[in-house]
């Protein structure tokens, strides 16, 4: 099956690849920024078994009503400090998140977050068969339509 429902987010940080890799794989770091907004993820609610096949789980607690949502993923590839891949088997189609760390020199690192099989695309068989484009390109396409 072709890769569908792709999503890419690029960011440059002022830190080494090693530190960024550790931030994304150590519960005490993750608890400081994992979020998302309006939720809290405590380090005690984060499970990291950093090896291919190992578990990556985060319990996110809604700040407003205390309700919980658990992201359940399994590491697919763990290569400090270049590459980190996990898959969420519970999400239809198995959403896969790949994070790559590229040394730009002068203490800067580019972090690229690439996701495939983003679930909204998998909502219907037609979408599964045909939407072989990235969400970013789709967003750009929609905005060109709206701009006319």
């Amino acid at each position, binding site marked *: 099956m072709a890769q569908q429902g792709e*999503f890419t*987010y690029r*960011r440059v*940080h*002022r*830190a080494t690849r090693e*530190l*960024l890799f550790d*931030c994304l794989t150590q519960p005490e*770091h993750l608890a*400081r*920024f*994992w*979020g*998302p*907004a309006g939720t809290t993820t405590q380090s005690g609610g984060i499970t990291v078994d950093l090896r291919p096949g190992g578990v990556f789980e985060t319990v996110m607690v809604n700040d407003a009503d205390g309700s919980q949502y658990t992201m359940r993923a399994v590491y697919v590839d763990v290569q400090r400090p270049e590459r980190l891949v996990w898959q969420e088997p519970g999400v239809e189609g198995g959403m896969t998140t790949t994070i790559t760390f590229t040394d730009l020199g002068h203490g800067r690192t580019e*972090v690229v*977050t690439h996701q495939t099989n*983003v679930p*909204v*695309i998998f*909502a*219907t068989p*037609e*979408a599964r*068969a*045909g*939407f072989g484009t990235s*969400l*970013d390109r*789709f*967003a750009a*396409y*929609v*905005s*060109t*339509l*709206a701009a*006319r």
Partner: protein
Amino acid sequence: MTTAEDDLSLTFAALADPTRRAILTQLADGEATVTQLAEPFALTQQAISKHLKVLERAGLISRTRAAQSRPCRLEPGRFDPAAEWISRHRQMWQDRYDRLDQHLSELQSQQEGGR
């Protein structure tokens, strides 16, 4: 699945086909009849009509009943939920890495303070 998600599925399904995306692009320039829409494609009017039905069901286009030719027009507002879903997903990652930057600068100032 909620109604909002169902609508979103219809939107993405309708957009899954390159011919339908081309039709929408053409309609972004203004109303057009089935005959006009069929022209750029090596497709029968019947085939185009099928595509139009999918787009109409998703609410991405509407067809006026006033004229015999029933021209189609784009309903740009219907694209908003799909665009919003994507921008929310983007925002989640942006916020996450914003907080990571903040965390990094705190680590850095702790290190400097400890020297």
